[in-house]
């Protein structure tokens, strides 16, 4: 017995140290996830039996299909807009313009704010009595009624962008800063105008960085919960739909909710895998770009 201890004491101590973490992980994450998987195959309200009915109902139902489509569209829209915002912003911020530290801090603000608070503020700002509509009504000639942004899908996309664009911006900025400035100078000396330098040299080299950040933005937008919950109105992406299944019907539709959660998880993993492959294919050429 003592020889076993002596031979494996280090390993056992390490295991002991990891025990609380492993227990927490299993009890609060792994087992719940397992339960969700099991529940998704269980007939609604039952404790035994297996069925694919939960998946079938959701996937065949046009409402269910719309939920999936909506989630994708919102996330893709938000990601695209985030990229369109982040690239010019990063190009401006990399020159140390006056107050650039302040603007960089501004980029990080949405990350630190709970989604709930951000969504609330955005609802107020873009609402019918908010500053956005006040500006339109008072300064833009042909606007006579408030423009609806709250509770609309395009409004939700704006909200997502506000909250999640920093992921894209941060990686884009660091990719820009990792570029060897000599390369741009070489381009200029060779006769390329600043725009040509941007198009042929800078953009191709920072594309992997942009994509890496946009993955995070997409994932966050895809899995968004608190934001669409209070600002989505009748538009319910997957996460909200899951919650609706257990909060509205009585008794709660645990199985249905679990099935939707599984579908959401699978879609997310699938998309992530595709994205990663895309990034890897584009990342090869820029291997030597870093200083």
């Amino acid at each position, binding site marked *: 017995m003592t020889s076993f201890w002596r031979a494996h004491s280090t390993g056992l101590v390490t295991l002991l140290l990891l025990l609380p973490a492993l227990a927490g992980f299993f009890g609060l994450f792994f087992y719940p996830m397992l339960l969700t998987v099991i529940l998704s195959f269980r007939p609604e309200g039952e404790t035994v039996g297996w069925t694919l009915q939960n998946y079938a109902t959701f996937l065949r139902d046009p409402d269910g299909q719309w939920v999936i489509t909506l989630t994708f569209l919102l996330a893709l829209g938000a990601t695209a807009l985030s990229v369109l915002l982040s690239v010019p912003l990063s190009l401006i911020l990399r020159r140390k313009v006056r107050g650039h530290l302040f603007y960089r801090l501004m980029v990080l603000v949405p990350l630190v704010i709970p989604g709930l608070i951000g969504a609330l503020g955005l609802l107020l700002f873009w609402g019918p009595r908010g500053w956005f509509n006040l500006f339109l009504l008072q300064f833009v000639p042909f606007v006579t009624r408030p423009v609806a942004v709250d509770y609309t899908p395009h409004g939700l996309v704006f909200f997502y962008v506000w909250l999640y664009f920093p992921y894209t911006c941060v990686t884009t900025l660091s990719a820009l800063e990792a570029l*060897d400035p*000599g390369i741009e*100078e*070489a381009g*200029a*000396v*060779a006769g390329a105008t600043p725009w040509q330098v941007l198009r042929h040299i800078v953009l191709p080299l920072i594309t992997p960085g942009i994509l890496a950040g946009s993955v995070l933005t997409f994932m966050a937008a895809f899995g968004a919960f608190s934001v669409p919950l209070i600002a989505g109105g009748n538009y319910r992406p997957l996460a909200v739909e899951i919650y609706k299944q257990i909060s509205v019907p009585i008794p709660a539709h645990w199985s249905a909710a679990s099935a939707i959660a599984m579908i959401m998880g699978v879609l997310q993993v699938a998309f992530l895998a595709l994205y990663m492959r895309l990034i890897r294919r584009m990342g090869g*050429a*820029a291997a030597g*770009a870093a200083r």
Partner: protein
Amino acid sequence: MADGMIEFREVTKRYGGLVANDRLSLSIRRGELMTLLGPSGCGKTTALRCLTGYIRPDAGRILIDGKDVTDLPTHQRELGMVFQNFALFPHMSVWDNVAFPLMIRSAPKAERAEQVGEALRLVRLEGYRGHYPRQLSGGQQQRVGLARALVYRPKVLLLDEPLSNLDAKLREEMRFEIKEVVTRLGITAMYVTHDQAEALALSDRVAIMNRGRLEQVGTPEEIYEKPGSRFVAEFIGLSNFLEGSVQTVDGAEMVVQAQHLRVLTAALPGAGPGQKVVLFVRPNEIEIRPRPEPGVVNLFEARVEKATYLGDTMDYRLTLGPGLELRVQTDARNRHDQGAAVWLQLPRVRSWIAEG
């Protein structure tokens, strides 16, 4: 003012309190390879970047082939440039890198192919057209850079310490290649380096810079044999300095008293008796003799303090008196041991008026 291919006219650039280029005026002739040589911070890189347009000078004009380009943006100056860290586009193949200046100018495809092929032939890299920069060695990358700089036959080629990132042996090989290519194409070139051996080996003329100013401009021989100031003498080659004052002036010669030594040297314009001067002699010009010989000028007694064997040369430190030290380099055939008493002959001594 002579009209060269490249003209700097009173170019001045300041960074806060630091003057990087101080009313720099330099003319580089057509087809010549001029090197800007100097220690770090002397302003040579600033001058180069004023020429490329990446930096705008605070004052002065810059002309290329008679045209004032001071206000012209970089991409319109029709230059070719080779960079210290190669600056190749990592996401483009060798072919695309070299073709880039042509692609930017929308040159027709057939012409492009011909010129790129020629440029690659020039640097002997035709077989590498499909490679990417990360697959190439340092020397190969620099050759690609050279090809890219020359592909559209610019009038002026700029080289910014192009060999600093290569190892010593490669540096020597590349030196010849660069010189060869530049001469063959008849291009005017401005070369920037801090390596004096490189400057002396490559250049038609050398411009030595110090603290934003030109110290001396001349051929490598002129710079080495007739340094115009103490700085140049110290910067190029090895040097010995002795401080003394003029005793007598006799026509083309004068005698300078440096402690107990009476040194005969060429007369210095403006130096009369009593004038403090600095004497300069190169370690490899001093002869060590075992015995004194009558009738030999500038022969002084000395003792060997230190003798270092360097393979093909011997490096000696000798004292001629308190505080009077000279360094001598001779071939290793005649050895003198530490402590030996010898005689030094200083055949050629130059002098300048001492500062202060």
